[in-house]
């Protein structure tokens, strides 16, 4: 079992009445709420926390890409990953990832990922998300009906740019290049492992299975709803004879405390900040027509799952208690958290768990405390899982703690 620390780099200073005053944390979030000096602290705290997680024994550290929002202020995760490639020595650098349909030409991603792989000495995981509707259709103006076609064309170009030894021409519908010959090339051959974050689209499952990519379900609706989606993925996978849990990942918010009182006192406001402000997305931005294929829309309705970013828009706010009860957040003492996460890992059949130890408005010191407690008291008791499987989705030169015996 591999465990990675995921950081969203959220903007932590939204006003108390954000939800009441503004309609969305994404796309049209007012710019006057942004303070550059606050961002200076947030970016540097984020880098420190990722580095700290690496030092504490996480297998990998994850950053991701979002645009025009206060939910996660890393429009270029590669800048953050670049710092981490140098500041860390052995962990996997998981860029989760670059929304490849947004880059013109997409070889920009091939180049930057190759740079990251070289700087890190072959520790890069290349994440290829389709990108959320808010980021792609609204933030970057890509036609939602063309997004997937553009994505698959970009993916083909990037793989060929990494793998083909000779200069080639690429005559695509969206990108035409007479000479493709990128410098540098990745250290990892034939290419860095590819992880695809998804929200439950059928096309993404099919593509991951067909191409052998890792599928990561990044949702905040918790492991209960997450199970419905992962069951769908595994049903598709099993039909193709795939059952290695290392080909799947899941994201989970985790906080570790010594007592109920401590958890409540320290984490309630930050958890509520996350769910009630960071996921406060105008419904009109969450699902542009054509963003999900008709097939996915139909399948979602029939299976009664909503396959879109975040949670289904709820009109009411949620409390820390609600969030724990619904499985959105796993919070407890080290042994309670270990037990719950083991259940999540087994239920969802996943070999990679991406843990958010900082979320919402959680300040630096609290995040670090949480990282340390999780790394020291939870991770060692989960690594022994899935001993019968091999992880084929791990960077060639990153450290691997999995299959270690559990510590008590």
């Amino acid at each position, binding site marked *: 079992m591999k465990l990675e620390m995921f950081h969203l780099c959220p903007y932590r200073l939204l006003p108390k009445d954000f939800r009441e005053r503004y309609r969305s944390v994404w796309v049209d979030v007012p710019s006057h709420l942004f303070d550059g000096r606050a961002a200076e602290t947030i970016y540097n705290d984020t880098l420190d926390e990722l580095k700290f997680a690496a030092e504490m024994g996480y297998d990998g550290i994850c950053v991701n890409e979002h645009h025009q929002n206060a939910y996660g202020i890393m429009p270029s995760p590669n800048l953050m990953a670049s710092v981490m490639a140098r500041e860390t020595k052995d962990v996997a650098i998981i860029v989760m990832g670059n929304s490849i349909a947004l880059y013109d030409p997409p070889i920009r991603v091939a180049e930057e990922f190759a740079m990251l792989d070289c700087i890190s000495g072959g520790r890069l995981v290349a994440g290829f998300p389709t990108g959320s509707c808010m980021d792609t*259709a*609204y933030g970057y*103006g*890509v*036609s*939602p*009906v*063309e997004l997937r*076609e553009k994505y698959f064309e970009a993916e083909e170009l990037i793989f060929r740019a990494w793998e083909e030894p000779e200069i080639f021409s690429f005559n695509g519908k969206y990108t035409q290049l007479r000479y493709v010959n990128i410098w540098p090339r990745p250290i990892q051959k034939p290419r860095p492992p590819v992880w695809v974050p998804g929200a439950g689209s059928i096309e993404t499952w099919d593509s991951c299975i067909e191409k052998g990519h890792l599928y990561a379900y990044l949702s905040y609706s918790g492991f209960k709803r997450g199970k419905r989606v992962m069951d769908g993925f595994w049903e598709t996978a099993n039909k193709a004879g795939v059952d290695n849990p290392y080909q799947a990942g899941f994201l989970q918010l985790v906080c570790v405390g010594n007592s109920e009182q401590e958890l409540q006192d320290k984490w309630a406001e930050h958890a509520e900040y996350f769910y009630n402000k960071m996921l406060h997305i*105008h*419904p*009109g*931005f*969450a*699902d*542009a*027509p*054509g963003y*999900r294929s*008709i097939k996915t*829309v*139909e399948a979602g*309705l*029939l299976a*009664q799952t*909503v396959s879109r970013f975040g949670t*289904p*828009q709820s009109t009411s706010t949620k409390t820390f208690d609600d969030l724990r009860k619904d499985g959105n957040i796993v919070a407890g003492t080290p042994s309670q958290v270990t037990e719950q996460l083991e259940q999540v890992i087994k239920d969802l059949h996943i070999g990679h768990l991406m843990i958010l130890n900082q979320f919402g408005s959680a300040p630096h010191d609290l995040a670090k405390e949480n990282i340390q407690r999780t790394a020291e008291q939870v991770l060692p008791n989960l690594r022994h899982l899935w001993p019968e499987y091999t992880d084929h989705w791990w960077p060639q030169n990153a450290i691997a703690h999995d299959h270690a015996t559990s510590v008590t």
Partner: protein
Amino acid sequence: MVTTSKTIQIPSSERTVEYTDVGSGPVIVYLHGVIKSQTDPLIDELSKSHRIVAPFLPGYGSSTGGPGLNSVHDAALHLDETLDHLGISNAVLVGHSLGGLLAGELAAVSPRLFSHIIFIASYGLWSDDEPTMDFFTASPQEMSKAFYSDSSLPGAINLSQSPSEEATEVDPNTEDGMKIIKRLVEQAKTMSSAARYLWPIPDRGLADRMYRITIPSLVIWGENDGIIPVSYADLFARNLPDSEKVLFPDAAHMLNEEYPQQLAHVILDFIS
């Protein structure tokens, strides 16, 4: 009156086109809007004296849509081919809303096919000073208000009561549940077809091609249009070499449902 539609397959492209073909007399080709009226009273009015040929736009009804028809030029050539297959020439071309955008492109490509062109509350141009409404981000209720000035019309009620996915817990095991699911899927299909030609800004450069539309042109707008502001009527009139303009003071975007008789009268007057 409910008009029945037919379906043909164009042999050369193998695409399917669903279309309405009613009435007899000189031909009016009519391209519907973003929201295709379930029953279109304008067709009823015009078909009293003319033959109305009204193809469903790509992706609407059973008409073929999809990536092969992503650009307005693909669509214009496809419509040209459709009319060719139906043996239509020397017709009057009427386009409403999204249909207006495609009518403009079609007329710019094939100006010799048509005697007159009529733009009703049409997409196709853009003004930074008065952007068109981004209805893709709006709720069904907000959309209904912007499309209609008369909220009691069946179309307005139907639109405002559209199910929205996040607000609907549907049970696929019931007949009602399946009905809603069917409607949601149909909605997703037509809206994504519209997005093909309107995303992110409904301007595909028609202004640069409008000099080719030298036939007599009529621009009709509702002064209360909440989707495309009435100021666009002037933009169209200015870009068209030979145009007239008629405004309906109390109408919104769905003039075809709100003022079908008066609208038909204005159109017939213009082409006679």
